[in-house]
């Protein structure tokens, strides 16, 4: 079939597929050409993408102000660190365990506070994040090693293959990022995603239409925390050491900025936001101590000129135009 006969929506989806393929190819080829330093930078970029995506579920999809997300990240990282160093459980097995631990923790701590609105929820999550960090410093039951943290975490092994190189951890994290992005795109288009967005736009209207607001908000916190727990696992495994200073309020603020710089509720936006936050300090290394000042200036300028984020969420999927196109699309 000649190109000019292709209906517009198919052409668009072909373009999209080609774009995705290019991104995928670039990600695969990258570690073969870049040095270890750049591959490590790409690893931390991946960590921030995961963290941004995890906060995006809570802040972007449901509009709940969460400035204590580093607490969930810490729970994931410490679960991995403690269980691996004490009991020698392989770190890849601990990946889902960390997610579960962080999700369960989120369920327990947010259940009593989920009814709080706006800024009150915000300060309670800040308090929660601080409590986690301070508790880790105070070394409860001698498990967390106090201010020095836990060290000596294993590298992941896949059968006989040991993923302890920069490229290995890079591959691991980007596979996880790919899965998370896919799952989140599916989630956005599901009943759950629509319910979340409905709560964000108007909570009372959502309740009036029969959405169980409390349950959906809790679900968002649990899923967001679980994904942050996954990021915590990968972070702990990469650094082989975790300490409380990696999980400060500042880290929560960075995640918050990632979501807002990228665009609330937008997956590609969050990836761009994570790129801005993680790559920027690397690019501006030559500014030395001024780089964070420049960073702050850029944050303000971004909000001045793109207040909705770099890549705001397009309302898609449920618009009548899309529905018509989908109905008109030939089957088979």
């Amino acid at each position, binding site marked *: 079939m000649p190109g000019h006969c292709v209906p517009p929506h198919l052409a668009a989806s072909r373009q999209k597929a080609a774009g995705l393929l290019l991104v995928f190819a670039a990600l695969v080829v990258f570690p073969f050409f870049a040095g270890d330093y750049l591959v490590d930078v790409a690893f931390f970029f991946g960590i921030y993408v995961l963290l941004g995506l995890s906060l995006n579920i809570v802040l972007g999809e449901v509009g709940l102000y969460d400035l204590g997300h580093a607490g969930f990240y810490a729970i994931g990282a410490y679960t991995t660190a403690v269980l691996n160093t004490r009991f020698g459980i392989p770190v890849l097995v601990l990946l889902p365990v960390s997610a579960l631990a962080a999700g369960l923790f989120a369920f327990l701590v947010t259940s009593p*506070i989920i009814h709080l609105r706006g800024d009150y929820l915000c300060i309670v999550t800040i308090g929660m994040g*601080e409590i986690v960090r301070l508790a880790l410093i105070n070394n409860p039951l001698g498990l967390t090693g106090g201010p020095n943290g836990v060290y000596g975490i294993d590298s992941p092994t896949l059968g006989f293959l040991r993923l302890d190189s920069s490229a290995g951890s890079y591959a691991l994290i980007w596979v996880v990022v790919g899965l998370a992005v896919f799952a989140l795109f599916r989630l956005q288009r599901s009943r759950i995603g629509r319910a979340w967005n409905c709560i964000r736009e108007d909570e009372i209207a959502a309740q009036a239409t029969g959405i169980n607001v409390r349950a959906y908000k809790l679900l968002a916190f649990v899923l967001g925390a679980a994904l942050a727990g996954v990021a915590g696992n990968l972070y702990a495994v990469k650094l082989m050491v975790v300490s409380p200073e990696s999980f400060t309020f500042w880290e929560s603020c960075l995640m918050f900025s990632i979501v807002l710089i990228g665009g*609330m509720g937008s997956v590609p936006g969050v990836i761009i936001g994570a790129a801005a936050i993680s790559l920027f300090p690397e690019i501006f290394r030559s500014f030395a*101590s*001024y780089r964070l000042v420049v960073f702050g200036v850029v*944050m*303000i300028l971004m909000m*001045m000129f793109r207040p909705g984020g770099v890549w705001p969420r397009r309302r898609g999927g449920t618009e009548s135009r899309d529905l018509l196109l989908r109905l008109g699309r030939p089957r088979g």
Partner: protein
Amino acid sequence: MRVFFEQLINGLTIGSFYGLIALGYSMVYGVLKLINFAHGDFFALGSYLGYTMLVFGSGFLTTHLGLWGGLAVAVIVAALCLALVGVVVERVAYRPIYPAGRLPAVVSALGASIILQNLIMIIWGPRYQAYPAQLIPNFPIHAGGLNLTGLQLLILCVSFALMAVLYFVIQKTTWGAAVRATALDRDTAALMGINFKKVIRFIFTLGPALGALTGVMVGMYYRQISFTMGWNYGLKAFTATILGGIGNLPGAMFGGLILGVLEMLGSAYVSTAWKDVFVFLILILVLIFRPNGLFGEKIAEKV
């Protein structure tokens, strides 16, 4: 019992710091519904400016004006500088972003905070700076079996006086009425002829100036200051704001005092290491049972 009263006084002292900083958060929040993350850094900058005035101006100021005169000049200059900084930050970093809504303004405030904090680090260095001990009035007081310091009483008096003045300004003056009206309903206030921009400039003069005064007092009390102190105190003060009911000025003052007392009693009777955990737990408990803070009024949700 002696420990209790001493800790109570210590708690009131740091509580008054939290309260004074919380006033700045609360005023901005009341009018703009914005969590001004840069406010903690205003406080830190004020502390550093006071330090510089005391150290570099010490020879000149104290010889010409005496100990108290030098101190007063340092405090006033720091407050005036910070009032200027506050107005400039508002003009440059916040005003262009108001139309975009609340959340972009929060990110912008974070950006402003990062800039201020790192500028402090670049100018004064990343290490602790020590306030000159010989320039700080201090004498022990033994009253009723309690060990207190004159500095502590001085700080308490000044803090309570400042809170009283601010309360008077907000409740009794035309400017205060304008601030309260704008906080209540911005559009109606504008229709009544209140200049919104002037109100904002007013609170961004008052809040940072109070923050700077607090900063100098904290420097004198603890003798050492660091560039990250803005975050630590800012977080506590913001907690105090919420504890008292955000946007409610007397609530912020009491919230600060309660927080300080809880912190000190917690460190005396529970454990020093867990005192902050104790404070945040109390905050969470209060919010579970009183979701609008201790003194916040219940606002009906409009449909």
